[in-house]
């Protein structure tokens, strides 16, 4: 088990960086209209994740494909195979 640490509990973590790919060029940080990020040592830090409106411009701007944006769990919508609905109905 790792050591306990104190942190502010985030409601969601919209923006994740791939430390291997990120060159810390800062383009994502500069394009974000809300200024969600602050400069960091290895890559920008999503300092205000709750303010993100999930537009995806940081991902669109990244030349390395180093950012993942994901909707909060509650907003991840569901899809199914159409065939499964028809099959269920037959049964």
């Amino acid at each position, binding site marked *: 088990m790792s050591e306990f640490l104190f942190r502010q509990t985030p409601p969601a973590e919209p923006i994740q960086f791939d430390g291997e790919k990120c060159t810390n060029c800062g383009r994502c940080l500069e394009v974000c209209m809300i200024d969600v990020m602050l400069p960091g040592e290895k890559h920008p830090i999503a300092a205000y994740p709750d303010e993100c409106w999930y537009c995806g411009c940081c991902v669109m701007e990244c030349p390395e494909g180093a950012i993942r944006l994901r909707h909060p769990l509650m907003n991840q919508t569901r899809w199914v195979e159409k*065939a499964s*609905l028809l099959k269920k109905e037959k049964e």
Partner: protein
Amino acid sequence: MEKSQWPYENRAGCVTRLQADVLVLGGGVAGCMAAAQAARRGQSVILVEKGAAKRSGAGGSGCDHWESAATNPCSTVSPEALLKAMMDDNDGYNNAISHYIECREGWDALLDIERMGGKIRDTEDEFKGAAFRDEKTKLMFAYDYKSRVTLRIWGATFKPAMAAACRKLGVRVFDRVMATTLLTEGGRQGGRCVGAAGFHTRTGEFFVFSAKAVIMAMSRPARVWLFSSGHPGLCEFRPLQCAGDGHAMGWRAGAEFNMMEKSVQAEFSAAGRSFPPYSTGNNHNTWYAASLIDAAGRKIPYADRDGRLLKTVEERYLPAPGQDFFLKGGAVTQAKYEFEGPETLPYEELKKQGYRLAFYADLSDLPELERKVIWGMMVGQEGKTQVPVYQNFTEAGFDPRRHVLQCYGTGWQSAQFLPKERQLFGLPGGFMNDWDLMTNLPGLFVAGDALFASDCYGHAAATGSYAGRKAAAYARKNQRLPLCEEQIEAEKRRVYAPLSADPREGVSWKELNEAIAKAMQNYCGEQKRDELLLSGVELLERYEREVIPKAFAANPHELTRLLEVFDILTVAQVILQACLSRRQSCEKLEFYRPDGDGAEPAPFICLRQEGGRVLRRQVPLDYAGDVKENYEKHNRDYIEEKEAAL
């Protein structure tokens, strides 16, 4: 990073003064178009943007369709006929001037964006042969394939092209500067607008801008009734930073506002009841006209306005027999019979016929190009869809030929909100304008979402260009006036105060925003009554008196958010005043007054402040007059310019 460190330089208290002929406030769609237009007309231009102009504004990440381009070469509807429909559909409670500009010049603005580098045609012939494509121009249309006034566009390419064009034209762009006040002649409420002031959202540096003409191109207000401290970025349709700062600073400066009593039952708040727009199954806007099926896979019928069931997908895109065109789009929830387009049967009827929830959007049964244009172009180019919806869903395995996407709710909306959960949507209130898109403050022009009864991208772009043209002409004719130093000093004190407040006693921006939203739900919900509205006025005045002086911000970023909430408080107060001013219910304003006097609803009710007092006047709904005649009278130069270019 240590908790105490702020990574940017602290320049709080440093003042930078700048001059331009034309000052544009807000670097969204309207602001960029305005700045480019003014610069092309030989004016020195400064553009002030709270975020980063490259992707800022409600349309920054993209847009999939451009409405009301009545003068595009394939349109079968005249700008006059389209405008008349937009006005009639709203019983006249709409902005005839700005929407006529949209109908008449929207196509010009779109061509301008194409010249800047935006993609508006299917140049790769990806959709060759589709029913919605014109083979000659390679333009593609949405909704009504007969009238062809709404174009499908690759809007994710637009905003970076606009921002780059502005820079190329010599516009000085100040990103990360939040304008907080308009500066007026002599510092007087109602005086000529002579500039603006604001601060840098990272360093705290104070900026003072002096200009001959100013264009207000900031957003409509938000977060007035809806707030979530957990997901503030998701609580409205538009971005977090589109908070209504422009409305608030306009009100403080004495600008006149119209239709501020209008609000609608909320439709979009992904922090709470609904989902991120376009990420769920539905059949409106981006997703028009997707097939819907029920839980048993039964196809949900589409019908025309007379209830005639439509047999083919093609018919969903055509007007009814005897109808010239139908209205669909961002600001049209339910058009009147005359303009009503094809629609799936209402839920009550579906329930009777045994259709069962949940419903799903089913693209699998659409013709291939119809499927491909919804999933891949519309979902992809529309704002907020390219990465979190199109890219992420595709990576997770969503295949529109096999999978069906769940709808939440009983129709196209992804949730049902409470009547007291309200939103400024569907042609909300804003700055009152004349035929030059000038406000009552001489030298202050207005464009895009700042205008009353604004709606979408094409409206923002067309009114932006128009305001840029008019402001340039004004700047050429008028001298620069000195700024009022007292007004600047007072604003500096106001802006910086929260940085020195006591964090133990001070309220944060989130706590204050949540309190305002709750107050507005309680006192300014669906039913408007004097007693409730006055209690709301009293409570918000108390917040202004007791909470604002103690509010705390730890850094310039928090200060930005806090000053936005101060602006939201101002806007909420304007809304309460506007609601108190309207004495009768008015359906098209979604305004209900159980204590009304039973008389006919008043026309426009316009409000402004003078010497701190609220002044009201009524304005006839047809104040724009004959739109064609007045447009041509006010735009001879532009019409001649266009003719000369041909």
